[in-house]
């Protein structure tokens, strides 16, 4: 029985090459060789992880990540008929993402939102300088089970703690996994404010967010 090593490598190579037609062709070839649709998607997920690592190392850039994700979306759509119902259009979790109030830094948070989206999460990006109560409102309104907060200044990282307190006040803290990040933020800070997760980088965040679901 074939382990489809050649097809799997071709899919990963195509993901790293980030061209939509190439990704589609690699997936089509794998399907023609007999690979299951779910397995093709799993391999593409691994390819997306490689894309994330290359992005982190400055070898691939944001449009390339998006193009690879776009290719993956196209393949999933083309495989719809072969997928179990629970796999069609499914996302891992709904995540609310934003930069805390008083902090207008946008790019790092946006890159994290993009990487989460590419990693299979449904992202509600609420922007930057988000009032603390708005985070809670957006989480509740959108039914988010995860919240990611960015803070790029030592003077605004404390707001992450305030938002966690507001989640507790609203009685929803135990329904939401809280992720924190940003240049001054550390694991020690995340532990202190009782966040569920701290990530140093966008791609690490995707891995840690997936781990939180387990």
């Amino acid at each position, binding site marked *: 029985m074939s382990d489809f090593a050649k097809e799997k490598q071709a899919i990963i190579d195509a993901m790293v090459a980030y061209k939509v037609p190439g990704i589609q062709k690699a997936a089509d070839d794998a399907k023609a060789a007999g690979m299951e649709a779910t397995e093709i998607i799993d391999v593409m997920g691994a390819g997306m992880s490689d894309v994330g690592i290359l992005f982190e190392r*400055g070898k691939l*850039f944001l*449009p390339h990540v*998006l193009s690879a994700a776009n290719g993956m979306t196209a393949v999933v759509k083309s495989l719809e008929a072969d997928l179990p119902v629970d796999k069609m259009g499914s996302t891992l979790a709904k995540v609310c993402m934003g930069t805390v109030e008083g902090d207008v830094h946008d*790019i790092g948070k946006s890159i994290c939102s993009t990487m989460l989206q590419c990693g299979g999460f449904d*992202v509600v990006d609420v922007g930057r300088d988000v009032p603390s109560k708005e985070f809670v409102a957006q989480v509740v309104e959108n039914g988010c089970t995860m919240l990611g907060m960015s803070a790029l200044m030592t003077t605004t990282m404390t707001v992450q703690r305030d938002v966690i307190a507001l989640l507790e006040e609203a009685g929803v803290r135990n329904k939401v996994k809280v992720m924190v990040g940003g240049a*001054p*933020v550390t*694991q020690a800070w995340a532990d202190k404010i009782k966040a569920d997760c701290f990530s140093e980088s966008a791609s690490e965040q995707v891995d840690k967010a997936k781990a939180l679901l387990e």
Partner: protein
Amino acid sequence: MAKYCTRMGDGSTVYMTKEEIKQDVLDGTADAADMGGIKDLTADEIEHLIEIICDTNRIVGVARGEEVVLSYDVGQLDMTGDNGNSGGGVPASRLNGALVHERTLCADTFELAHSDYSIKPVKPVIANEMNDMEVIQNNIIIPYFYGAMPNMGLYYSPDGPYGNPADLMRQFKIDEAQEQAEAAAKHLARDILYVATKIDDAGSDGFNFDTTASAGDADFVGTLTGVEQLRKERPDMSIMLGMAGENVMGIHGEIEYDGKVVAGLFPHQQVALAEKAGANVFGPVSNTNTGKSLAWNLSRAVTFVKSCTDVSSLPVHVNMGMGVGGIPMSETPPLDAVTRCSKAMVEIAKVDGV
């Protein structure tokens, strides 16, 4: 085994053995070499760096005669600003701030800066800035520049007229995102020329483009283009160009300057484009990782900066401060770490200024 008091990247105190410090130094230089495609520090440089970190004196310095040019950025704001922008909260006029830096803090150069410290918000108030520049120039002796960040993020929604590429990309509108970034870069270049020529007219000794490429590769291209136009307009103007990070973020991904894709460039590659555009001084940056030790961060930073000084024909004035140049990211960076980072940059990376 003896342990040395040192720092983590967030400024907290940590005690490490010499072996642990050595391992972090090796890992830091290896990370920079791997990311930037540059050489690791040599065995001698690594030994020297370990000596600097393990020095039991609280403060260290360079040998007499090895001092380098010391410049300060953000003008009077480091005195008048509150903790929100790393200031001391000391009431002082712009003139007071400038003279204190010259006459008591021993600055070799200093600059005038608006509280928004960005090209876009300065444009509508440039007449006021020109007035203050002229007044202070009449009182100060050291070279006195004007400083501002290109900060192209202010040209994107919701702050500016162009669509936000990050938002557009999440909708898979990649071409549109790139078009918006290119349009914003042209706008930035235009504003740079406007602001810099005006302040030059008021007698500024030069312009410091600080934290270039903070909004990614199109920000870098916009700034380089603005500098190129400025150099044509003002052949004798002194232009400093400092970066935001060790790596140019690829938000556009394909935008070019002088036929070269700028996304992903590291300091040794960035400096060539800065020189081509017409800068006189280049300021490389290496960002601090708060979860790693001073040894790891400083080793990595020195490796990046040395790769730049090795190839640069421009004077290299490294960015040193909270969260850059190996210095911890904390509200008031610890002096033991700041002086070790400065000494290493001078003695190992061979910078011309700090």
